[in-house]
């Protein structure tokens, strides 16, 4: 797909709506045809859904795969011996995890696009990086695969990686002070899971024990708000607390799924997720009708990246909302949207269950 190379040269938020719609229509149809021709399962599904493969279908008419399908089935669109890596989603104990099959090109494109998006935020140079977690060597990989994968994935944008927590999950003040005194006077990068950031930087960290504040830091965090919702902490309060306590103002939340690794959505300064040139979003109700802007429903995500597995057009279990006329002063092009968390587990009526 040569067009991808071309847009990799541009700013990742350069396409206006009209151009993007045309570009996506073209590209997503092409990807659909590609997966149709290369995945038996995908082809069977598309045929049974009575969808006629064409080059110029509107993208909202193309069947989407529910994300959970990647947990139930092994889906890939390349010969099995081309697969070099399988990504797994977090999956809490007992649940099945997604299996995302990557070949070399797909894996490489993920890195390239992530880099593009990250460079926009961090600049082109690798920055000293503080990771709000334990050393990944000490994280049990079978249980926290996604955590390790995310830390690994983002680590390539940093240097002199320092982990905030020791093996017992306590803040390692020695290491932190070493890091701050070396790098704290110029731009540095902090990465971590949203709940870990809150727990450690806001709740636990004792400011009188550190030598410098965090005013030169750029903080990127993701992984969802579920734990913080229980504590009634919104994104706004989160930012306010971080700013008040750490004097840290550059705080960016990101949203991304393992099914579409690479083309992540990073929050702009005004607090909206923005679809880059590499991704697009739609919102649907539970009957799968399209919803208008400013209406809440399931997030459907498009990504240009998935070529070795049919994940270019997926329906998530997250509730989102596209914001029209967002009060957003950022110059970036792309749809603005909010994520309102994951839907709750089903309440099943019926008699085949007793406690």
């Amino acid at each position, binding site marked *: 797909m040569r067009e991808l190379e071309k847009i990799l040269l541009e700013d990742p938020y350069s396409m206006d709506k009209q151009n993007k719609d045309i570009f996506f229509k073209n590209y997503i149809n092409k990807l659909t045809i590609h997966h149709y021709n290369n995945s038996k399962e995908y082809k069977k599904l598309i045929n049974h859904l009575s969808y006629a493969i064409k080059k110029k279908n509107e993208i909202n008419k193309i069947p989407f795969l529910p994300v*959970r399908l990647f947990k139930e089935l092994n889906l890939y669109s390349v010969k099995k011996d081309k697969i070099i890596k399988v990504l797994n989603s977090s999956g809490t104990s007992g649940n099945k995890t997604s299996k995302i099959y990557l070949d070399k090109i797909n894996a490489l494109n993920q890195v390239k696009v992530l880099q593009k998006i990250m460079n926009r935020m961090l600049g082109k140079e690798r920055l000293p990086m503080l990771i709000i977690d334990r050393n990944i060597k000490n994280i049990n990989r079978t249980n926290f695969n996604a955590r390790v994968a995310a830390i690994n994935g983002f680590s390539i944008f940093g240097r002199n990686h320092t982990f905030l927590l020791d093996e017992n999950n306590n803040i390692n003040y020695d290491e932190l002070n070493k890091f701050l005194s070396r790098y704290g006077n110029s731009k540095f990068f902090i990465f971590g899971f949203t709940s870990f950031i809150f727990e450690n930087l806001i709740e636990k960290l004792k400011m009188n024990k550190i030598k410098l504040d965090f005013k030169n830091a750029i903080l990127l965090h993701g992984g969802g708000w579920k734990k913080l919702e229980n504590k009634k902490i919104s994104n706004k309060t989160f930012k306010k607390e971080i700013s008040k306590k750490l004097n840290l103002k550059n705080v960016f939340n990101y949203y991304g799924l393992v099914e579409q690794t690479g083309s992540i959505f990073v929050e702009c300064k005004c607090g909206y997720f923005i679809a880059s040139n590499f991704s697009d979003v739609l919102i649907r109700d539970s009957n799968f009708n399209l919803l208008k802007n400013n209406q809440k429903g*399931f997030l459907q995500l498009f990504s240009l990246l998935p070529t070795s597995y049919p994940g270019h057009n997926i329906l998530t279990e997250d509730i989102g909302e596209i914001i029209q006329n967002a009060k957003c002063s950022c110059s970036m092009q792309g749809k603005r949207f909010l994520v309102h968390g994951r839907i709750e587990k089903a*309440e099943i*009526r019926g*008699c085949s269950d007793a406690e």
Partner: protein
Amino acid sequence: MKKVEYLIGNKHFKFISSPIYNSLVCDFICDLSKVLLQHANYKKYPDIITLAFWCRKQNIDIMKRNFSANELRVGLGLVFHITPSNVPTNFAYSLLFGLLTGNSNIIKVPSKKFEQINIICDCIKKILKKKKYIQIKNKITIVRYNNFDEFTDKISSICDARLIWGGNKSIKEIRKFTLNPRSRDIAFSDRFSLCAINAQSILELDQSGLNRVVEKFYNDTYLVDQNACSSPHLIVWLGNKGSKAKNIFWQKLYKYTLKKYTLPKIASIDKYTKLCEDLINLPNIKSHKNYTNLLHVVTLKNLDFNINKLRGKWGYFYEYNSKNLDYIAKFIDQSCQTLTYIGISKDILKKFVVKNNLKGIDRIVPTGQGLSMSLNWDGYNINQALSRIIDLK
């Protein structure tokens, strides 16, 4: 702290066996019907209305008549009921079964605090205040608890019968707690149900007739998210007028669900995921048709011996065209519980059963009565299952 909440009664259980269908119990149940319909909130809950309807005098009289009175039967004593966690009114039927058959009862209700449970318990308590019912009062203990094996163990060890609702998993869990050697277990395991429709009969219906049929079908299915063991999953179309009749029927059903049914958000994803899995995995699919995500119909080329694996929920049906009913007989296995039907005569159904040595199917009822509770349930005659016969010569 582990605790048992007594919604009705207390820890001093009584073991009273009285004759089956004794008139005090019948009066009590008729009173319950009236009191339920006087409750301020009953109208909000169609399942309460159904329960009140079930309890009315006329229905109790029919049941009493149907029971052969030549036998001398009395209750077993104390019956322990473990009811399903997600059907709010099921516990009430279970209790009424126990009372009618002359038993004392300990009922475990779902730990989820359904309003229906409060309404029913309020009504029962109100009636039990009458002096007349002092004996009934000793026969009803309603408890709520969760993860309290010691209690389940204790009651299991002293009860005379145990009624386990809730499917294979619950049965396996509960059976870890042993009963007295003399005691009985009555367990309702996971079942599969189907519906047979005479295609021609659909074509012969006028609009209002069609509306009625669709509403009845809806009540057997969508009303409980198609998740009761007697809700049909497989629809068998009989005759060669299938395709036209199908169109009319599903279209009408879709329009009805548009007005009536709200697909829970997570259900919508579950349903679609199951569909995608099926479309990829099932070998015998002829076609699939959807009416938004509200109604999915998967048409099968042929049946195989795994029909009980075809389980749709929330308005997801498998359909199959068959020239006649006899053809499907060989696919009916022990897991089949209810056959509902539209436009088929009782004669034909009787012949179907007699002729084919069916391995399964315990109920054959017209569409619309799929969920109606009766004392013949799941192949058990509850009258007999919860009582003992005294041989008097």
